[in-house]
């Protein structure tokens, strides 16, 4: 059986969620792997949400906001852009491939773009394989030994 990634999407209410809605009302098809959580603004996406998603078994997290300059709240998407850059470095340090966190701009009229983004992201994560974070075991003893050695 092929691997079906479990993806979480945080979509801003004004652009991306409406864009996803448009994809739906236009009967466009995209992989069902993405489960969407609506937030008012991409700036509302707390880095903890992303970490929580990984710890609960997500294989990838997609955050979608309005295009730069189009944010309903003036500049929430820029805040999101800054935070996501940090989140990517953080997860890399944790041993998670930063490609598993993706930020995309999707406007309310871009239903087709939304389906494209989801399809592409799903394929990318499928290629990366499952994360299996819950199965990881952190070897405290080995880490301590290494510290002492240094």
């Amino acid at each position, binding site marked *: 059986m092929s691997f079906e990634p479990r993806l979480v999407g945080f979509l801003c209410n004004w652009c991306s969620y*409406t864009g996803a809605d448009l994809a739906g*009302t236009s009967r466009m098809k995209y992989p069902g792997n993405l489960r969407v959580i609506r*937030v*008012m603004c991409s700036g509302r996406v707390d880095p903890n*949400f992303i970490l929580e*998603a990984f710890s609960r078994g997500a294989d990838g997290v997609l955050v979608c906001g309005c295009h730069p300059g189009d944010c309903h*709240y*003036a*500049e929430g998407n820029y805040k999101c852009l800054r935070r996501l850059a940090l989140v990517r470095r953080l997860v890399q340090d944790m041993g998670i491939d930063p490609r598993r966190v993706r930020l995309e701009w999707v406007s309310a*009229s871009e239903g087709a773009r939304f389906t494209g983004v989801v399809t592409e992201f799903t394929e990318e994560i499928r290629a990366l394989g499952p994360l299996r974070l819950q199965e990881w075991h952190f070897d405290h003893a080995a880490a301590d030994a290494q510290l002492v050695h240094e």
Partner: protein
Amino acid sequence: MAQVSIKIDGRPVTVEEGSWILDAATSLGIEIPTLCYFKYIKPYAACRLCVVEVWDKRGRSRVVTSCNYPASDGIEVLTHTPRVVSARRMNLEMLMSRCAPLPVLDELARKIGVTTPRWGTGTDTCVLCGLCVRVCDEIVGAQALGFASRGISRTVTTPFEVEAEACILCGACAAVCPTGHICMEEAGGREIVHSEIVLGPNAAITVPSRQAVPNVPHIDPETCVHFRTGGCQVCAAVCPKECINHDDVEREEEIEVGTVVLATGFRDLDPSPLKQYGYGRLANVLTSMEFERMNNAAGSTNGKVVMTNGQEPRSIAILHCIGSRDENSHPYCSRVCCMYALKFAHLVKEKTSAEVYQLYIDLRAFGKGYEEFYQRILTEGVNIIRGKGAEVVSAQPGDPAGKLLVRFEDTLAGRFRELTVDMVVLCTALEANGDAKETGRRFGVSVGADGFYIERHPKLGPVSTPTDGVFIAGACQGPKDIPDAVAQGAATAALAMSLMVRGEVEMDAACAVVDEERCSGCRMCNDLCPYNAISYLEEKKVSTVNPALCKACGTCVAGCPSGNIRALHFTDEQIYAELEGILQ
């Protein structure tokens, strides 16, 4: 100025002391012939045709020129005594002896009673009235004309008889010249007719079109003499309501409003990039808007359907869907074209005996009464052919104004066909304005892939937008015919009124709240808020959210390093619960 009483031909009249007798006579409706008088410049008494007999209080009489004789108390003016008529005849005959036979002099001769001028006629066409010189000086302020030489050599000319640099080509001299000695040549494709009251199509003051809204004249600063020389202002002197203000300037005003309706409309697609239709190259290929203007009684041809050579076309092809329903241009249907194309066919059939060909993809007669109109057109002998026009070329190569060849595929007959016609009308697409996106961004309204504004909901919020208090109406939301645009306009007005009448706005309960017990007062959130809704309370050493300013984006909630800002909507708990649910 004091008022004085004078009598003209026995009729008493009260005028300002020192005003000219000619004006008083004109106001009484007494006609005094004149060649050199113009109300808005100083009198000059050059032609001496306006002579009258004036009796003063002491019983003495004189023959004077009425155009520059000031009124004083008690004088009596006689305008048609034998003495006056004889003087006028003499003066006119002397003018005629100098000038070639001119219509204006002949007309005066008929009025005054000169049959054959005693001293014959001359050759000059200038009567030396000096109107041109004085208008150029006093009104225009350019001083590009003057008199040269004296006596019989006297002429009107430019300084040193060379092309005057001071001339601004306003045409005022030609407009006032009574004989046509000075006339305007077509200069730069635009002849300027500038005269009092008579406003030609090229005058500096025009009403843009007969249907203009507001339907008032406007001054074109490019051609108005005042804006080039600072002089003239004759229009302001003529206007009885004192409506004309040359000092007015363009200004930006800020108005505070509670609701905004975007009704920015559409623009017509320019078909010149679609080279296959020959628009711009072939003279008789018109856009639908140009054809509509041609059919308008107030349009360029006064409602006649004519080709560029002025003749009535004997055949017209109307090509639907130019730039719409086209993968290479706009994929959408422009909605109004089918019906106006049928209307064009009806108008052409009514006005001319031309053959009409409609080349369509699908005929969409969707509205009330539209199908019935289509059925009526079918009975009027219009050729309705299913097949989109593919190409328009000249049927006579080398003659862009000649007959046109339209190539298309007749999809019902299943073969390629050609039509030779005199005129082609392109039903061009309705497209979004070029700056629609920029305008929309200012009001928080986004545009769709087609460039038109997106409504809040296609069925339940057709004129609302994601921004409260901003509505959209008409063709800025999508191609639309007049009834639909009117309906939307009325809907937005009602929605705007319902907001304004209430006088207060209900706000979402959604907002962010700071837990002041646990806030460390780091002030990180203060700079995060794009609405400046978060302020720092000095006395409590905590930050607080002003719920009236908060738009509930949640940026501060995600940004609080200690997690002590709570959203009253989309709480952390809710989102974690959602995560738990979807990742089970």
